[in-house]
């Protein structure tokens, strides 16, 4: 299937400061595409350029329309009709109610009254704000604000939804709810691009992830592909009741262990031979008469991949 969006040698700078340079990648229709990068790496710039709010110094962004590719910057009105954007900060009127906000932005997309009404009802249901529809937006909680922001971005049934840090400043429960919402939206056929620095969430929800580093998207792939590219190791997480230091010291000498990291009370062992390493660890724990609180063996997370990328 041809891609929905193509980034072609995109370069964007503010004054002399280069934020994006020669960015090239594609986004497929119907996927959830995650963009990961350090704070200040240019994620928001990338997204704002995609929506046409910023214009690049060089390069272009093409979108698929009627069996051809058109430039985002030469068809700004069409792009605005097709794409929806939910910003990191709330982007609606605090002094209007939820329903009024949706109705207002629907009008800005030139939707008819009946269409606005229908879409509003559906979206309120989708984001779970039906009972709060007459509430002023300024009285909403953080999670509700995010949902309202997403709803405002969807009022015109866009084919592409762009989300900038949708779960920032949310507690874990709300974050999970938000991701469930995003997945639900994606299931309706909307392509989603999400920018975030919360690696675990992207890893869980995204079909593909692009890593933004050094002004460019340096890696793109599924989470597993990325993990496979950056490390063959797996990780074993061990938490015992007492003698962490002794275990760490003893296992440090093991030839099966590539490296050990301490995360609070948890020892994380990185190993290319997880089975043999596991046996060694269990044996040592037994010898020390320690009690195992938790033990887990898994592939390394994106966090480790991310850190290893940034350490290069």
């Amino acid at each position, binding site marked *: 299937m041809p891609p929905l969006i193509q980034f072609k040698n995109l370069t964007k700078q*503010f*004054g002399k*400061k280069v*934020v994006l340079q020669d960015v090239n990648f594609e986004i497929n229709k119907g996927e959830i595409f995650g963009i990961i990068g*350090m*704070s*200040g*790496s*240019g994620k*928001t*710039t990338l997204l*704002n350029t995609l*929506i*046409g*709010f*910023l214009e690049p110094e060089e390069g272009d962004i093409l979108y698929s329309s009627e069996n051809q590719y058109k430039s985002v910057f030469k068809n700004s*009105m*069409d792009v*605005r*009709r097709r*794409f929806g*954007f939910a*910003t990191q*900060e*709330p*982007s*609606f*009127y*605090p*002094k*209007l109610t939820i329903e*009024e*906000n949706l*109705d*207002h*932005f629907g*009008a*800005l*997309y*030139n939707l008819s009254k009946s269409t606005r009404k229908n879409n509003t009802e559906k979206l309120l249901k989708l984001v779970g704000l039906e009972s709060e529809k007459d509430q*002023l937006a300024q009285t909403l909680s953080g999670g509700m604000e995010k949902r309202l922001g997403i709803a*405002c971005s969807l009022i015109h049934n866009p084919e592409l939804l762009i989300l900038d840090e949708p779960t920032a400043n949310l507690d874990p429960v709300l974050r999970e709810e938000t991701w469930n919402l995003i997945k639900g939206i994606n299931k309706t056929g909307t392509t989603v691009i999400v920018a975030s*620095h919360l690696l675990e969430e992207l890893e869980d929800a995204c079909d593909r992830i692009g890593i933004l580093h050094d002004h460019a998207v340096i890696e793109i792939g599924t989470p597993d592909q990325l993990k496979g590219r950056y490390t063959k190791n797996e990780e074993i997480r061990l938490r015992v009741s007492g003698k962490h230091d002794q275990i760490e010291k003893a296992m440090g000498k093991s030839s099966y262990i590539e490296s050990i990291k301490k995360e609070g009370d948890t020892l994380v062992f990185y190993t290319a031979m997880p089975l043999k390493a596991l046996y060694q660890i269990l044996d040592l724990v037994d010898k020390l008469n320690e009690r195992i609180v938790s033990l887990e063996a898994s592939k390394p997370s994106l966090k480790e991949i*991310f*850190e290893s990328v*940034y350490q290069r």
Partner: protein
Amino acid sequence: MQTLIKIIKKNFKLLIRSKSSALIIILGPLLVIFLVGIAFDNLNKYSLNIGTYSEGYSDLTESFITKLQENNFKVQKVDSEENCVNMIKQGKLNTCITFPKDLTLESDKVNEIVFHVDNSKINLVWMVLETISSKLAERSSELSLDLTTDLLNKVDFTKTELYATRPTIVNLKTENQQGVDAIGAAIDNMGELRTKTSELKDSLLQKIEGAESVVSETSTKINKSNMTSTDKSSLITKLNEIGTYLYNMKGKLEAQSNTSVAEITQMENVLNDIGLKLNSIKSGLLSSNAKLNEVQASIDKIYNEVSTIQITNATTIVNPITTRIKPVATEKSYLNYLFPSLVILVIMFISILLSTTLVMMEKHSPAYFRNFITPTRDITFILATYLTNVILVFVQLIIILGISTYFFKAQILTAIPSTLLILLFTITLFTFVGMIIGYIFTSEETATLASISIGSIFLFLSNVILPLESMPAYIRNIAEFNPFVLGESLLRKAVIFQAGLPALQKELLLLLAYSVVLFLIIWLSQRAVRKHLGHRLIYMRYKKAQKKKVP
């Protein structure tokens, strides 16, 4: 259109839901018109506090003070000039008048009344001076009138007396002349008498001699004649007797005439004396007549001069030229006269501040970014802000005009079509000014400050603070293009003078031209703001993140 209406409705909802904004929008104009109506709905003259000082108050001074008090001015006597001046500085008095000691009207006496005023009260000082000067001038005119009337009466009396004196002089002259003539005649008579006496004597002598020659001739003739000697002798004897008689008569006559001559000579001398004296008297009388002629000439001259005085009315002399103020419009209260200025003032500040506020509200709204990523054009947002402002200002104007008309009977609702057009153009222009300020400035405080500054500049370069005519020429030339001045002038012409649209065309077109230019600036500003906003938001976030370096 639907989108435009939706945005306008959104703007109204946001304004109304902000309690402070709603309060100001509704109560603001009510407060303005209430205060203005109370302050200006009258034609009272200014109430002034006047201080007076004099080392000695004469009746004349008191009459001046009474004149001032007749006009409801509060006049108080102060104990010293210095105190009086200090009271002006403290604001307790508007002016201080120093009268000379024991003010009276005397010849060769100069009476000077001194005014002390506070020039720093620019809008009041000239009115104070003019009002008080006119009151004092009134009293001065009354005094002049009395003096002039007195003078005219005396002139009239003089003229009458002169006229009455003239016949007397004429009579005197005539009598003098008669005397002169009589004396002349007497002198002539005396001369004739003397002449006649001599002539008589000579005549008699001639006659006697004639008679003697006749006698002689007759004797000769008789001798020669053929008469008898007796006859001849008798005739000759008689002739000789006649001759003797004549000779004797001649002798007597000569003797008498000698006597007469002496007497006549003596008489002549006496007559000469008399004649001299009479001549002297005659000369005196002639001289007297000459002087009488001079007196008469002077009297005539005086009389003619006095008669040539054409203006004999004292009031006309004291006030040869009177002035009358005739207002070009029907007499109304201050509110009606000031209403055009007040309305434009309200429109200006409300339009500029409100439109700036609307733009700043939108710029600082969280939804501002979302507006930019919708397919609604910039011009729709601009028009929505403009129309929101126009509707709001019109609502406020309706409140102001309604209350003015109902409570204060201000006659404003005349020439409605042209008035509405003027108001619309003025509101449009000032709305655009406010919108530009909103787009240019980033913070609400600076935008508000800029709005007030711009409004103040428009206000200062107008007739409201000082008359434009009192400003330098180059400032006046600039002020003519001040939209506040244009709007006020248009409204005044339409409301007070009932001018039609053709008379207002030029200024309306100028306002329209301003509005078009301002609209273009707004459109360009909106595009610049969009670009600047995007760059600023992203770059600030980028810089912030770079500083934190949070993974």
